[in-house]
């Protein structure tokens, strides 16, 4: 089982490799990837260094080119694929059909992984991407229950990659326009969700409020911990007669550590850690814990055996609160 870790810069990249990642995924410094944040990602020169660092240590590097190509600037996505291919990277993570098609035809030996942004949640969609673009692995959206992941594993021969830890998208990735509805910028088109440039924090009378493009997302009492204001994690009133509550989701993050024995049993090929936007210290700690857990875990292990790793991860999670998300049926 591959441990795939995030890196937003070279320092995080090295931390991930040094602390036990089998592979690290990165993005280029433009809007061709779904973490298009200021100060993040790799220039071609930095990428070259990263590739050598990984390959010298027999580790892998995946490049995410996983936003949807704009018609007017389609060549930007083409150049991103060309640049990645020229650097002899190990896999491309792609969502857009036209980019998949280009990569598959131009670089038939380059391994293609279907990005979570392509929202392939079922055997039919997977077959489409396998047959049309020779995709080797699929990153599963965080909408499936563990039972559904198991069913998929039984009826497809594609490699499965699942999200194991990090921020929790509660919508089917690639099928969420909430960000553009509020800000005009979206993950699919701009590689951002709830962009920081639209976030406003205000403090008055002891209350902290968070806004996204002037829309009130949440308001916090002094004792409450504030979360990043994505629309899906705010507190809202429903039918205006209720007390405001987390109508969509609480500010929690995903942690599937307790499912690790099950994921082994299913034969999942890779565990993905979310967080290219996080610090190198975070990448280091999370990578270390998951490396240890994977090395010591087996399909016969009991959940209680995982207690130590669980504790170490808790302190690294958003709001210090984690969930199994959709993997656990009752969350749905």
């Amino acid at each position: 089982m591959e441990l795939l870790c995030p890196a937003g810069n070279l320092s995080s990249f090295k931390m991930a490799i040094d602390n036990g990642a089998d592979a690290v995924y990165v993005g280029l410094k433009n809007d061709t990837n779904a973490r298009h944040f200021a100060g993040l990602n790799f220039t071609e020169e930095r990428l070259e260094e990263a590739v050598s660092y990984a390959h010298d240590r027999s580790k892998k590097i995946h490049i995410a080119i996983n936003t949807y190509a704009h018609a007017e600037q389609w060549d930007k996505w083409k150049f991103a694929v060309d640049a990645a291919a020229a650097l002899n990277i190990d896999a491309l993570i792609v969502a857009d059909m036209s980019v998949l098609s280009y990569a598959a035809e131009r670089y038939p030996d380059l391994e293609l992984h279907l990005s979570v942004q392509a929202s392939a949640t079922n055997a039919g969609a997977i077959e489409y991407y396998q047959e049309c673009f020779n995709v080797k692995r699929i990153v599963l959206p965080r909408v499936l229950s563990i039972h559904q992941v198991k069913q998929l594993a039984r009826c497809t021969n594609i490699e499965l990659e699942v999200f194991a830890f990090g921020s929790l998208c509660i919508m089917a990735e690639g099928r969420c326009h909430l960000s553009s509805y509020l800000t005009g910028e979206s993950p699919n088109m701009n590689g951002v969700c709830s962009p920081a440039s639209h976030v406003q924090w205000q403090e008055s009378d002891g209350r902290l409020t968070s806004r996204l493009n002037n829309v009130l997302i949440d308001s916090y009492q002094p004792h409450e911990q504030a979360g990043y204001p994505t629309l899906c994690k705010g507190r809202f009133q429903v039918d205006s007669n209720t007390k405001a509550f987390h109508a969509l989701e609480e500010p929690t993050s995903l942690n599937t550590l307790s499912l690790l024995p099950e994921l082994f049993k299913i034969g999942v090929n890779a565990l993905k850690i979310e967080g290219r936007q996080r610090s190198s210290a975070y990448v280091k700690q999370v990578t270390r814990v998951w490396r240890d857990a994977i090395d010591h875990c087996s399909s016969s292990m009991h959940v209680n055996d995982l207690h130590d790793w669980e504790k170490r991860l808790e302190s690294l999670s958003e709001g210090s609160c984690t969930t199994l998300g959709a993997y656990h049926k009752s969350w749905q």
Partner: protein
Amino acid sequence: MQYSLGPILYFWPKAQVEQFYDKAAQSEAQIIYLGETVCSKRRQLKMVDYIAIAKALADKGKEVILSTMTLLEAPSELAQVRKYCENGEFLVEANDMAAVNYLRKLKVPFVAGPALNIYNHKTLDILLKQGMKRWCMPVELSKDKLSEILSKCDAIGIKDRFEVEVFSYGHLPLAYSARCFTARSENRAKDDCELCCLNYPRGRVASSQEGQTLFVLNGIQTMSGYRYNLINDLKTMEGLVDIVRISPEATSTFEVLTNFVHANLISLSADETNGYWHQIAGLTPLGANQTHSRVMS
């Protein structure tokens, strides 16, 4: 310009659905989409019922398309989509790549629905070769983006080989989740939902703590809080758009349709928007300075 009625996105009782399509048969809509696209637990109408309505509408001269589910997780849901794709009589709207996969293998033409991620000419070219005959663009795309995409289509010689449809009226489908938010709003889990969406024929409105309408909960689907309304933008669709889609709402759908067909310009009401078409935030109507100027309370 042609006018279509999109699939009903809400969960309505069977009688209400049948009544809606009785009216639709007499309406000015030339094209009618039918079918459940949101949740497989919504079974007031079965496939046989939809086919019966489809036949009745076709007899009245309507072009009928069977719309299929968007978020497919269980094998049973996939099997159901396959049955629709294999119906042998009516065109199908694909809202997931699984449907595209079946349709391309059956070598039958299809409509690419708004939930498919199609953002450029080269993707359109791929789907065209696989049988796409009409494209209803993603709701977040603007007039300018559409026009860029179509001019690129022109450059590669495919612009006239498919029709372009734009979701032009109604609460916009914005997101899909494994979680049912309507059930959650009643403090239930999805497995224990008791089909509570039936109690909310317009969905449930969620507002900010300042009273601003933000979105509508419709089962596992999250919709825009404001209704999208491009009636004043019809002129700017000329030369770009072939079909204007009106999404059914619990009230006034046919009055709205008539207004569109006769291009009766209106001022948008406080709970309507046209932001996406103008490439600004979806909830901001063109001309509004700030979103918080629209706080209701």
